Structure formats: structure tokens, C-alpha cells
């Protein structure tokens, strides 16, 4: 079966005055219809950049050097603006990290939600009335279990709380039929109880509508409870891929291992060992595997050649590391 979304060998750089930042270093990534995929990684490892590349909203100094992004058989790189807009309107949707900033402060929720429904819903133009839009907007808000949706519709974004805003954002992105929801750290800015509610809500809606979702997060707990499969990203590479449970129980890549160990425990057993060092400088990234300067198993070959994401064992477990990919 042809994957629904496939990113192949994506290289993206950013032009800056200090030189070119080589951020994405051949990202490979797949998502199937109805699948919940998670991406984890440190801040600055290129999670958001990958998603922005898929949606075509990279900053203007970004350069896509090579790669392919195929969505339902359409090549998204080099597609016309009109074609891309069509796909964005009909198929793709995104929830951003900061729900405060994702809503235009000068419009009421009603007019924003109404516009989304008007332009991406499949209505015949003449049939769109104010009443219909309001009804549909109310339905969308009820779906995300917002109390008193009438009042929310008549509010400006700043009159709502953070959790409410994120619900509004979710309502907006799911108000019309879509295929793929990209959620870029949707709960990072919310407090834990709201986080839990929002995630649960998102998961239910995604299941109900049989959407695919790509959930980006650096919170491992969030990922573990929400998604089917996980990609681990490090410095512009997907370094490990597996089913969620498997990844958490038996991580292969040294980085994943370290990442799982860095999580502070609620039991208060002190700080964990974690990973030394930080994400490499993207202007002159280390040759070979980008993790080699921080890796305690680094070998000769790690400094020379970068490993590819390859299947290890019989199960659906892939890793990009020379420890496993013997030549």
C-alpha cells in the first residue's frame, strides 16, 4: 500500500549571515492513513522544520536542497501555490504550540470559525448563510466539549483561557473534513490537567474521524499515551522508528536510550543520567553520524559516514546507527 504521507531524503538548510545552517539532514518519514505518529526529540532538532516543510510554510530564508514529500500521490515540493492551497484547504490541518498566538486577536471566534467553514467546507456558495455558519460553528465547538459555546463564539481570543483557546484551535482544524492533522506540541503551553483533557479530546476526535495525526512533542509521556508509532529525531535525522510500546521498552539507538533516561521521575529518585552535551552546531555539523560527539559507543565509522534508517530484526523497528547496521 502506498503510504499516505511520505518524506524521503529531505535536506533543508537556512541561509544566515554566519553561513548556511544545514538543519534537516535527509529526513525519512512515513505515515499511513488513520495512523497516529509521534515525533520526539530535543528542541531545535528539526521536528517543526520537517512539519513546516510538509505544509510549505518554511521561513523565507529556508532552502530545500533535495528530497521528496509525497502526500496521497501528490508531490508537494514544487507544487503550484494554488495546488498547495487546495490541498491545505481540503486535506491538511495543523494545531500550533501556542493557542494564544494561533488566533488572530482582532476577530471574534465566530468570524474565524465561520471563515474556516465557509472556505474549506464543501458547501455550494449560494447556500452559505450566516445562520448555517453559526450552526456549524456551534457544532464544531460542541464537539470539543467547550462549555457555553454561544458565549465562546461571541468572544475575542483574549477573553478565553489557554485551554479554551486550544480547544477552539482544535475545533477550527477539525471543523471540516480533513485527512491529516499535524499537532506541533499542542499541549506544551497548558498546565497538566488541561494537557490531559486536550490530549484525550484530540485522540477521541482523531479516532472518531479516522484522521491521521502527526504529534510532535518533547514530552515522552504525551507521546507514549497518544500515538501508535514513534519517530525519534536528532539533529535533523530520524534516528529511530518503532511501535510506541516497543520503543519505550527496548530502545536501540544510544540517543533514544539517553532520552528515556533523562526523564525526571515523579518518585524523586534524584536526577537521572541524561545525555551530555547539546545539539550540534548546524553550520559545521560533525561529519558522519551527527550524534557521534555525544555518543559513548562512537566508533571509527561513526565519524566518517552517516548511517541510514534501516530495519533491525523482524519487527517493525528501524534505527539509524552503526551499532546495528553492520556492513
Amino acid at each position, binding site marked *: 500500500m502506498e503510504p499516505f504521507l511520505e518524506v524521503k531524503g529531505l535536506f533543508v538548510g537556512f541561509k544566515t549571515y554566519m553561513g548556511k545552517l544545514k538543519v534537516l539532514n535527509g529526513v525519512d518519514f512515513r505515515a499511513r492513513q488513520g495512523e497516529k505518529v509521534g515525533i520526539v526529540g530535543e528542541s531545535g532538532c528539526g521536528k517543526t522544520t520537517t512539519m513546516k516543510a510538509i505544509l510549505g510554510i518554511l521561513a523565507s530564508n529556508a532552502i530545500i536542497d533535495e528530497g521528496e514529500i509525497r502526500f496521497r500521490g501528490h508531490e508537494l515540493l514544487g507544487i503550484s501555490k494554488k495546488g498547495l492551497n487546495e490541498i491545505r484547504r481540503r486535506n491538511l490541518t495543523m494545531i*500550533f504550540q501556542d493557542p494564544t498566538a494561533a488566533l488572530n486577536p482582532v476577530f471574534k471566534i465566530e468570524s474565524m470559525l465561520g471563515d474556516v467553514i465557509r472556505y474549506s467546507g464543501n458547501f455550494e456558495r449560494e447556500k452559505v448563510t450566516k445562520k448555517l455558519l453559526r450552526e456549524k460553528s456551534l457544532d464544531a465547538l460542541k464537539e470539543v466539549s467547550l462549555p457555553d459555546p*454561544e458565549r465562546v463564539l461571541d468572544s475575542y481570543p483574549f477573553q478565553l483561557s489557554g485551554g479554551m483557546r486550544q480547544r477552539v484551535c482544535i475545533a477550527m482544524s477539525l471543523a471540516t473534513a480533513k485527512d491529516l492533522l499535524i499537532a506541533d506540541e499542542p499541549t506544551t503551553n497548558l498546565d497538566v490537567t488541561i494537557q490531559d483533557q486536550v490530549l484525550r479530546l484530540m485522540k477521541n476526535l482523531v479516532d472518531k474521524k479516522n484522521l491521521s495525526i502527526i504529534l510532535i512533542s518533547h514530552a515522552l509521556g504525551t507521546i507514549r499515551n497518544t500515538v501508535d508509532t514513534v519517530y525519534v529525531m536528532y539533529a535533523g535525522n530520524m534516528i529511530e522508528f518503532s511501535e510506541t510500546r516497543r520503543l519505550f521498552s527496548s530502545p536501540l539507538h544510544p540517543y533514544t536510550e539517553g532520552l528515556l533516561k533523562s526523564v525526571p521521575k515523579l518518585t524523586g529518585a534524584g536526577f537521572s543520567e541524561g545525555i551530555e552535551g547539546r545539539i550540534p552546531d548546524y553550520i559545521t555539523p560533525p561529519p558522519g553520524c551527527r550524534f557521534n560527539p555525544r555518543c559513548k559507543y562512537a566508533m571509527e565509522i561513526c565519524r566518517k559516514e552517516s548511517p541510514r534508517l534501516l530495519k533491525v530484526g523482524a519487527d517493525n523497528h528501524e534505527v539509524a546507527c552503526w551499532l546495528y547496521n553492520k556492513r
Partner: protein
Amino acid sequence: MPIAERIRRIPARFDLKRKWYRFSRSPLSIVGLVIVVASIFLAAAAPYITPHPDQAGRATDLQNKFLSPRFAYLFGTDDLGRDVFTRTIFGFQYSLTMAVVVLSLVIPPGVILGLIAGYYRGTWIDAVIMRISDVFIAVPPLVLALSIASVLTPSVFNSMMAISLMWWPWYTRLMYNAASALRNEYFVQASEVMGESSFRIIFVEILPNCLGSILTKVTLDVGWVILLGSALSYVGLGAQPPTPDLGTMVSNGAMYLPAQYWITLFPALAIVIIILGFNLLGDGIRDVFVEEVR
């Protein structure tokens, strides 16, 4: 009335009523508003409320020249025996017209160019628009306006053109900064993800977020345009005698200082008061908007 219903009836903070309430809390803003409204009223009603409307333009009454302020001539008379009070009030007309014409010529292109450049930040479109505007900004406004006005024949119209030509880049710059900051806001990216056209993003998503700063700059600029217009008239490149322009009047009167101080003093005071009024109003509006945005 159920609580939910009552909450729904609370006017939103962006409503004009709330804005007005906030604005009216500041006495200085009210003073500004009163001055502005009064000067617009005086300008509009000049022919009906001045004691000697016939003396506004080409008129002489040499028997009464250089009269000091008195009841019949509140601000005294000038070297041709014309009532300075009448001419000052008529001067409001020229000054305000100048401000209105210049700003309505300048704002649409300046704002549109700035929004476009800001939205396409980092591309050649940005480079072209902003480098052109930099050229205009590099030269001090008064010098540029002076040099343009001196090439053209001196007249009110030409001085407006000269000021307009040097004024638009300031709006472009303002909008450029605003738009390129808003451009990276998530709500703009969200609209892109939803497949909105660039046109819609620029004019429907970004522009309304800039209205506060545009409005503020406009009220502040009214004062500056009047000042610059007066300066051009003062050096003889703007309105020509006998047009009752405040700047021209100050410049003519300067010859008779300090003995006949009133010929200069009152038109100059009028300039100061108009500018003060618009600046206070501008500050008031900015306070209201800045607080809203936060």
C-alpha cells in the same frame, strides 16, 4: 436573566464604547480631542465667525495697519491693515487641508507597500521596496521637501506634492516592521496552513492588526505635516501671499519683530496649539490601542 446570558451581553473590549471609556479617563487626551474638534470647527466655519472675512485674502486697509490687539482686532492688524485674527482662523483651513490631502495621498501607498514588503520579508520584493524607501528616508525630510519644492513652482499644491513624496516611506517602514513581526505569528501561519491566499492574509489577517499603529501615526503626523507645510511657506516655497497660511504669516511678520510682535505671535501660537492638539490625541489613541493589544 441567567448568568450565561448576562455574560454574553458584556460588550467586548474591542467595542468602541469600551475604547471611548478608556480614552476618556485621560484628561490630556480629552484636551487633545477638544483642540482638534475645535480647530476643525473653526476652519469650517471661518467665513461666518471671523469679524473681517473680506480681509482673509487680497485686501488692504492701510489706515489701520500695525494696530495692536484690541476689541475690534483681537490679534491686531498686519502690515497691510488686515485683521490677524481673521487670517489666523482662515489659516486653519489651509493647514488642515494640507494635512488631510498629504496624509490621504501618503497612507494608502505607504501602508500597502509596507505590508507587502513585510509579508515577503527576505525576498527580492522586500529588497526592492525597502531600498527605494531607504533612499527617501536617508535624506532629512525638510531638506528633501525643500529641494523638491524649489524645483517646482512654489504653490500650495506643489508643496503638498513635495511633502507627500517624502512622507510615504515612513508608513512603509512602520508597516514593514509590523507586518514582518506579525508574519511569524502562529495565526498567520495557521491561515497559510488553511490555504488562504496571500492577498487575504495580508489584507484580512495582518492589516486589521496594524490599524492601531496606523491611526496613532496619522494623528501624530497631522502635526508634523502642518509644521512642515508651515516651514515650506515660511521660506517662501509653499503658499504664496496673499493666501492666509499660518507659516507665511509668521514669516512675513518676522520682519516687524519685536515691535509688532502680534503679527508673528498669534499665527505661531495657532500652529503650536494645533500640533499640540493632534499630538495629545495621538498619544491618547495609542494608549488605548496598545493596552488593547496586550
